[in-house]
């Protein structure tokens, strides 16, 4: 089990782990896709100098 699956397993019954995990992944993925239209703040640690 992945760390997130282990965490969810502590909160919900065993049969619900799979669906809740899938829901979490879907929400995160959609959020990332929507949010990625914004430019990430230019920080020194992401070293793409000159861009």
């Amino acid at each position: 089990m992945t760390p997130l699956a282990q965490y969810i397993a502590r909160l919900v019954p065993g049969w619900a782990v799979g669906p809740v995990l899938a829901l979490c992944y879907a929400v995160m993925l959609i959020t990332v896709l929507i949010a990625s239209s914004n430019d990430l703040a230019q920080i020194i640690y992401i070293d793409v100098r000159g861009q």
Partner: protein
Amino acid sequence: MTALSTLVILAALLAVPLAWLGRERGIDLVALVCAAVLAWISPLSAAWVVGLGVGLPLAMRLAERNGGRAPLAGVTALVVLGVFAAAQLSPGIVWIGGAFFTLRQLHVIAEWWMGRIAAPSVASHLRYQLFLPALFVGPVHHLPAFERQCQRRRWDLPDFLNGAERVLIGAFSAEFIGNVMIANLRARVGHAMADSNAFLRDWAISAMDWIMLFFNFAGMTAIALGIALMMGVRLEENFNRPWLAKDLLDFWSRWHMSLTNWCRDYIYRPVMALTRSTLAGLVAAMLAIGLWHEISFYYVLWSFWQTLGVVLSRTIMPNLASPLPPGLRRMLAPLAILAWLALARPVIGLLL
């Protein structure tokens, strides 16, 4: 996410299947993709990394046979540092990943000079320097550990899934929590404090920037470590819950750990051994960390500010905090650390 970061992350994800086309051959293919991506977006960086990636091991082997280990190490270290400084001070130059591959190059040179490693093969050195997931966001991993990982890696589905999950959580952290939630909060704080004292406003915004920086950087690092794990390579961790630190020194040993460890090994310890002074070692290490961020007078002052914070946190602060119950002290410590870190910008702003 910047277009370039997205491009490199997508290229690294696309390289994951290639990594499984052979134990070492697979990582060679990842290095090839990395060289191609780098050559496309920054030919200069590609030429430098590949050139040194090939030239350094050959020169090391020559020096091992004919003598001259120390001069070669000294000269190459100076050249590497010179190129790093020149690239930093030339804003027109597109220089991708220099902050990280410079430290990796110096790590190889220093370890070889001290006799801890033999000259690596050209292939092994190129694999190490051109490991795509760690190209532009680190961590500054170590050559011997990386070589071992490449030799021993084997397909493991749970590891692969853990890596994929880490990529997703990292992207969520950087893109949504850092770039949307905290960025919005930062804008609100700025708006709410529009009429406040400029120093206090700058301090508050600087604190928000530190929080945003954490989610962005830790998120991007999680993406890098996750993709590496999907390739079967477990890289060094870069964060160890920095906001649970008990003081500033503890914070710096939990934040960007691969950089801090690098500075501890190659700056702090040698300077301390030479001068017999912990303070001199600390000042030198903090100066290296500051100038690594940017070669500027601002970061020189920033380094002194951080050194002062570490000294205060180990001398005066324990006495000041001693009347407080231990639980309350633990709760207040992260706030005090954030306040000190964020205070650097307005204070240095006053000095400059």
